[in-house]
Each structure stands twice: as structure tokens, then as C-alpha cells.
């Protein structure tokens, strides 16, 4: 509840939108879509309506004779999951998926954002919802900022339209680095994970080294990225099947990697078993700060595995949400106490975006960093990478540490997307 006035201030402040950037993006996206469309036409051999699932069904399953998947009421499904599987089978499928993404982003953001701008101040005022997401994360609407794909290039380009409101101010973004893994290290008490964070090590390289019994220096790029997928995928309940298809390895290899992972990080395996048991017994799980989520799904056999994933995930994601909320409540007070005019505009995922008068940046950043990193005392340090820039896309890390942290914290596109 103390967050209400904070969110109200953020909503009232809104964020400036660069209409020219959007117009440029519209042209760019349009050109890309045209290019993809003509390539698809070439691949298929004739023109058709890319937006029509019916025509697409005809082409995929009857002209190109690709394997049919799920059935819908009217025929075979052409939804994203089906196309994702068909991707290796024909070059047009990947292009079609890209085209769909362009088309989606164009209609939900590039075309919609100008319409959402309030007349009175020319800014975009999103609405934040505290009581929607069951994990405790904030969500937003008009527009839904959470849905801008952060990790893909296309999504980043959308962020270009979110700009500082005047030449006198700039944007400062602060993102918690690997906050969920850090919370996992804390709640599971896993010594290897804690140790790695305490040393400030490259956590994914470390993971790969431990699981594959190698020296960190010998870990290849592919091995590191596989470890990264596992580190991030765990909380999402990633299976050996999921890992094999994402990392492009056999299912047996994936299974071996995951088994080894749990053997090495025994604290994590124990936490996962224990939290499921707790959830079963008390019917709910809670965050470190005591916020609860009941999980009735565990009592329904068909939903049990989904329920178990929630049980594992919620204390971690939920604690991350609690932490950023604490920071959000304290931050405006501290900025005001320091006599600064900087204000928080947006909160997305683990990131806060502020609008800061240029002269204040040096004063704001330490307060911002300290408030976010000190929001909750964990057994492992919380770290924040801070970036500055005049639009939300082209933000520059403030320090070398920030740059390293930003790279480490990057969720693989396969998972985040």
C-alpha cells in the first residue's frame, strides 16, 4: 500500500515519446516486413495473405507437405509453437515467424503508442497494476511495458521511442543483475552458488566448469551458454527436452548435464524438493518477506507439475518483486531528502527507469544504486547495473562494472523471448 502513491506519481509523470522515432521505426518495420514477405513468396512460389491462418495452413501442410501438428476446430494449427517446431523443416517458416513478430510489435507499439499519448502533456502514461500477477510482480497496461521483448533486437528498437522529456534531462536505468539467481543462492543456501556470487565470479562460466569438471578458463562459449540456459531455465522448470531443443544437443546430453548440475548444486536440488513438500503441506509458498501465494493446483493431479513449478518459482520471482518494490518506496523519499528533482518513471521486469536532470546524474546514481542494492539484506550481494542515455535503447553503462554486470545478467533470448 505504501507503493500506491509511488505508482501514482509514476503514472502521473508518464514518459516522453519520440514520435519521429516511431515514424522511422514504422518505415523500417514496414520495409523489413515487405522484404520478408517477398522472400516468403519466393520460397512458396506464389503470393498469399501472410495474415490468414487458413491460407497458411493450406500452404504449410498441403503444398509444402510439412508434418501436421495440433488440430484446431477448423483445421491444423499454425500457432507459434507449431511453427517453432517446423522452423528447421522449411526456410519460410522462420521468416514467417519473424514477419509475425514485426507485425505484432508494429501494431501493439509503433502504431498504438502515439494514440496513447495524453494530450495535456504529450507523454505516455502507462497504468501499473499491483494486483494482477500472482507472483507479485507489477504489470502494466496501455501500453503493457512488460511485453516489449527486451532481449531481442526488435524489442530494443521499440525502446528507442521512449526518450528523455527535454534537453535538460536524461534517462537513467538501473537493472538488478541476476537477481533471481542471487535469491536462489540465498534461499537454497547452496554453498557453490553463494561462493561464486560472493567472489563476483562469472556465474555461468563457473557453472559450466563445475558441471563439466573443467577449469573455468577451459569452458567453451557453447558450454557457457548452455550453463546460462540451465541457470535461468531452472526457475521456469526447464526439462531435459527443453534444454536439448534450445541448446541443439541430444536429449541424453541434456539430461546428463541437468543431472550433473543438480548433483553439483545439491543445495538447489534440496531446496526444490523441500519447497514442493512445504507447498504440499501448507498449501501455499511465501517470499522471503512473507507474502504468500496459495497453490491449490498441487491438489489436482493434472495440474501438479504446473503447481510445482509455481511453488519453486514464486518464492524467487516474488522475492525479486518485493525487493524492487521496497527500493521503489524508498527511492523517492531519498531523492527528495537529497533535494534532487529526479523522478522514477517506469518499472519493467527488474529495471527502474528514471528521468534525471543532467546536472543531477552524479548525485542520483549512488543513491539509486545504494537504495536498490540495499533494499533487502541477503547472504549474497545484490548488484545493480546502471545505464544512462537519452533514449531507452541506446543507454550506456555508467561504469566498467556496470557493463560486465549487464552482460552477465542478460537472459538468453531463447528463454526470455
Amino acid at each position: 500500500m505504501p507503493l500506491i502513491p509511488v505508482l501514482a506519481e509514476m503514472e502521473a509523470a508518464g514518459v516522453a515519446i519520440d514520435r519521429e522515432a516511431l515514424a522511422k521505426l514504422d518505415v523500417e518495420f514496414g520495409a523489413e516486413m515487405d522484404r520478408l514477405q517477398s522472400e516468403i513468396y519466393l520460397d512458396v512460389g506464389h503470393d498469399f495473405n501472410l495474415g490468414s491462418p487458413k491460407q497458411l495452413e493450406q500452404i504449410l501442410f498441403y503444398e509444402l507437405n510439412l508434418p501436421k501438428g495440433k488440430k484446431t476446430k477448423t483445421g491444423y494449427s499454425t500457432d507459434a509453437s507449431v511453427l517453432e517446431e517446423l522452423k528447421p523443416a522449411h526456410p519460410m517458416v522462420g521468416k514467417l515467424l519473424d514477419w509475425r513478430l514485426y507485425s505484432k510489435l508494429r501494431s501493439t507499439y509503433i502504431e498504438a503508442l502515439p494514440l496513447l499519448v495524453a494530450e495535456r502533456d504529450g507523454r505516455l502514461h502507462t497504468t501499473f497494476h499491483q494486483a494482477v500477477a500472482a507472483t507479485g510482480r507489477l504489470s502494466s497496461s496501455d501500453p503493457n511495458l512488460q511485453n516489449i521483448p527486451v532481449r531481442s533486437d526488435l524489442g530494443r528498437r521499440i525502446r528507442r521511442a521512449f526518450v528523455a522529456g527535454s534537453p535538460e534531462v536524461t534517462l537513467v536505468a538501473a537493472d538488478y543483475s541476476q537477481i533471481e539467481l542471487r535469491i536462489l543462492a540465498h534461499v537454497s543456501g547452496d554453498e557453490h552458488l553463494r561462493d561464486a556470487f560472493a567472489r563476483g565470479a562469472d556465474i555461468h562460466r563457473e557453472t559450466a566448469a563445475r558441471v563439466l569438471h573443467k577449469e573455468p578458463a577451459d569452458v567453451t562459449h557453447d558450454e557457457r551458454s548452455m550453463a546460462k540456459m540451465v541457470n535461468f531455465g531452472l526457475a521456469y522448470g526447464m526439462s531435459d527436452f527443453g534444454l536439448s531443443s534450445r541448446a541443439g544437443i541430444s536429449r541424453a546430453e541434456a539430461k546428463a548435464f541437468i543431472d550433473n548440475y543438480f548433483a553439483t548444486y545439491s543445495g538447489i536440488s534440496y531446496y526444490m524438493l523441500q519447497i514442493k513438500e512445504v507447498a504440499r503441506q501448507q498449501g501455499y509458498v511465501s517470499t522471503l518477506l512473507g507474502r504468500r501465494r496459495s497453490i491449490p493446483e498441487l491438489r489436482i493431479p493434472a495440474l501438479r507439475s504446473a503447481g510445482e513449478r509455481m511453488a519453486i518459482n514464486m518464492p524467487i520471482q516474488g522475492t525479486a518483486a518485493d525487493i524492487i518494490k521496497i527500493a521503489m518506496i524508498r527511492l523517492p523519499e531519498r531523492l527528495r531528502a537529497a533535494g534532487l528533482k529526479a523522478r522514477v518513471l517506469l518499472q519493467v521486469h527488474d529495471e527502474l527507469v528514471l528521468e534525471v536532470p543532467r546536472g543531477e546524474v552524479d548525485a542520483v546514481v549512488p543513491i539509486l544504486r545504494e537504495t536498490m542494492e540495499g533494499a533487502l539484506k541477503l547472504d549474497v550481494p545484490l548488484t545493480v547495473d546502471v545505464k544512462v542515455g537519452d533514449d531507452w535503447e541506446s543507454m550506456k553503462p555508467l561504469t566498467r562494472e556496470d557493463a560486465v554486470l549487464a552482460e552477465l545478467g542478460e537472459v538468453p533470448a531463447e528463454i526470455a523471448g
Partner: protein
Amino acid sequence: MPRLMLLDSNGLIYRGYHALPPLTTSKGELVNAVFGFCSILLRGIQDLQPEYVAACFDLPGPTFRHEQFAEYKATRTPMPDDLRSQFPKVREVVAALRIPVYEMQGFEADDVIGTITRDLDARGGIDTTVVTGDLDMLQIVTEHTRLMTTRQGVDSTIYYDPAKIRERYELRPDQMIDYKALKGDSSDNIPGIPGVGEKTAAKLVGQFGSLEGIYERLDEVKPDRLRFKLVEAREQVFASRELSRIVRDLPIALDLEACRLSDYDRSEVVRLFREFEFRTLIDRLPPLTGESALDAAEALRAAAGTVAAARVAGAPGGPAAPAGAPGGAGGASGASGAGLWTRRAPRDGRGQVGGGDGLQLSMDFGATGLGEEAPPDSGLTPVASRPRAAGGDGATGSGEPADLTAALRAAVADPSLLDRFDATAEDAAEAAAWLSGRSEIGAALLMDDPRPMRGMPQALALAGPDGRVLVAESHEAVGMLGGILLASGAMVIGHETKPLVVANIAGGAAESLPVAFDTQIAAYLLNASLRSQTIADVAQERLDVTLPPAGDVPPSVRVGWMRSPPSRFANRSRRRWPRRGSIGSSGKSRCR
């Protein structure tokens, strides 16, 4: 001149039955005639804005016409059961609307209406509109009595006054029975003269003035064939005319005062409309007067249930002990809120007031008196600690929330209990005094758009446990009343309070509106898995109370039913409730 609306109920019911597709409820009951009747009744009220309404019915059983003319309506098949079963439903609606019914054994509704209008025409001083499903009553039309009927289903209406009759038939109203006797009417089994249709009949009556005129000057009738037919049918046409002549001297007198459209049993009407599943009809209802104010009061009443939810949510031992009052609470000092909730730039059009999704509301129970008792039937422990306004005297005001709820209920049921707040110094001083004496106040704000910085306040209602409900309707009045509320140091307790806080910031207030408790957040903390945490959802889940959906509120909430200004302003005629929309146009703006 005051207006009376007379309903030819049977005609409207028949019309609905035959003109509308077979609408049924989910239980399979046919209700198309009931729908047709209600639809045109409400349309009439909206278009005509009558001060008085009465309904006339046929009674079952033979009428004098059957006795005098064996053939009368002889071709009619017996009433189908699925039409017969709709009559009691119509009567229920009429009763719930407290519309008096006039009927007389042995006579049709037409005769009752004919008698009443003749009497009123003689007395003068009132304009009457007879709402009917056919043109049998054109004969009673005068300068002060007109007919309203529908074309094509029940959607478009048409009015007949003497000028309109002249335009269409080139006849006077009193000539219509002569015309009909010649032309015939298959539905009443009036044969007419073979080969004489509308044109010939109208020409004959127009030329000779009446049946008598025609037969007196028969030799002038050309061609011969027509003359022969007239001679042949002489007896029949005079008999037919008597058959369709409406009786106008029954021993019936209209009690005009009893017909005054005012208080009615709104909960019963809502119940009936729900039972018949007339949601679209409800939604289509146009605003009459003061709608947004009463909507705000109604929203407030609905929200009152969540006060109990707040108590439940704050139960000790739960994960969501209420947070302490935010810093600076109660320090909302001075008149800093002068700009509160006021936005000058008018939006185009009226927006969608009362459309459901534009509704934002909040409650303020002053934070000092949440009440001690848990809701009697919740079985939950009472709140141990309550948020208190800084410097609050700790007065608990036990029992007051219940009184407040009762006040709101009463005000919504009887709009004359609403007090209108105008943007005058006099009202402001009075409101400030009233607010300062309250330990808790309910508040509801109605916005045309719930999105931050885009919505405009439409109405603000405040309710006190003393039973008073104060409403402000113009932007100016809302801003002023909001400023007074803020300056009083009140703290907000409510459901989804954030839009209120944003509105306050948007209004340029220097002080943030202090929120002491938000039941939506509390409910979310108790059960985060509930996808939607609206007041209705939360009241249902926590209190097992079903709130009326926003879209259902309007029909029952028309202040239009209220004809006398609020008592406090009774002697200030200038301050009538504003009448929304003008005849004929207001309906369109609400049609979706």
C-alpha cells in the same frame, strides 16, 4: 404543459409478440412481448419525459363488442399460451414501476384510454401521448392527445397528431372510423367494402365528410359500380363504424397525482429485468437526469460492502496486517487542493459516463473509525489495530459504517435524499463544516476514463454516517468539493485507490492524497491467484455478497424518476437536476 403517457398495454404486448423474434430467457421462457413492452415503455419515458404515466389493459372475457357483433374479432385464433404467459410478467414490471393500471371488465383498453383522454381534453392543461401498437385509436387524436406507435419492430417511433393524420390521410381524426368502416380491417374482422381500399375510402370520406354525408349524396358518387357497392353494404358499414368507435364515457376517472412518475421499487425492477435477462435493454437505457451523481452514489453503496472486506483483510495473523498510515498523513493542510480534480480542457463529447469501465471509485472512512466489529456473518476475527490519521483522536465511531451503508442504500433508493453540491461559497462553507464534524466519510469519484492523466472527473459523491449523501456533478463542483475533502485532512480507505491519487496529482494538488488502506491490495495479498480483483470479485469472494454489475446499475439509478428537487433545494427552483439530453437525441448517444 405537463405530460401524461398512457400505455395501450395489450396493443404493445401484441405488437412485441408479433414484431420481435422469439427471445427467450436461458430457462427457455419466451419473453419477446415483455421485452417489446418494456423497451417501448422506457423509450417513451426517455423521449417524452412525462411527468405522469398510466397503463391500460384489456381484461379477459368478452366485451360489449362481442355481444353486439358476433363476428367481432371472430377470425382471431385463441391467444397462444406463450403469449398468455407473458401478460403476468408485464403486469409485474408495471407494478414494480408503480405505474397505476386502469381497466374495466367488458371493455377494451382502447375504451378506457378514450374515456380518460376525452376527460383530460375537456379539462385541458395537460398533453397526453397514447403509446400503442396499432392505429385503431387515431379517432381520439386532438391537439392535446397524440398517438405514439412503432414502425419496424419496436425500434423507430412515429407520432400522430391531427396534422400528421391530415398529411397521411387528408382526414380529420374523427373521420378515421368512417374511413375504417369502408376500408375494413382484417384483424378486427371488419369486412369493409370489396374493392374499396385506402385511397378510395379516404377520398370518399374526405369528399363527403362522413358516412352520413356519403349516403345523403349517394348520387354524386362515381363510378356507378362503387355507388352500387355502397348501397349494398349500407347496413354493414354503419355497423362496422359502431364496432370500431371507441367508447368514451365509461365510469372511469384518472387520478393524475397517482400517476406521477417518482419513487418506484427499483430493486424489484432490477430483479425482474435480471430474471427476464433484459441486459441489453438495461444497458440501452438513456440517462434522464442527474445520472452521474446517482451512479456515483450507487457505486459508493456497492463499495460500502468492501469496508467489511477491509476489516477481514486486516485480520491479525494474516499476512497482510494493514500498513501504518503513510508519512505526513493528516498533514494535508490548508487549501492546497484548490486545483484538485479540475481540468479545464473539455473533452469532445460526453465520454462514457456510467458505461461501467469508466468508473473509478474510492472510499474514505476517515481512518479513525473503521469500526470494531467483524461482519456478523463472516466468522472472522475483528481488526485489532487500525490505521489512524496522525493527530486523530482515536474516536472509533463504532457502528457508524453500518449506518453509512444504510444511508447510501436509502439515498440510492430515494434520490430525493441526495444533496446537491454546487460550486458556490455558500455550499463550500457548509460542506466544510459538515466534513469537519465527521469521523468518516464515504467517497465515490466517477471518471470518464480510468487511465492516468486522461480521464475527467464527472461526479463526486460523499456520504456521511449521519445519512447525508452529498453529490457534485460539474467539473468545477467536483474540484471544489474534492479540495474541501483533502483540506479536511481525510485519509483514504478504498478499493483501487490509485486512480484517485493520480487524479489528485493531475489536478495540481501540492499534497499527495494519503491512502490508509486499499482493499484491492489487501485482497490480492490474501489471494494473489484471483485473476480479477474488482470490488465485485472481492465482495463475492470475501463476503459472499453479490454486487450489481456496473452495467446493471443504470436502469434503477435514474434520478429521472425523481421529479421533485432534493429537499434541501426544494425552494430554489433554479437548482433543478439537470435534464440530460433532449427528446429524440439522448437515445442515440447511448445506443451501442
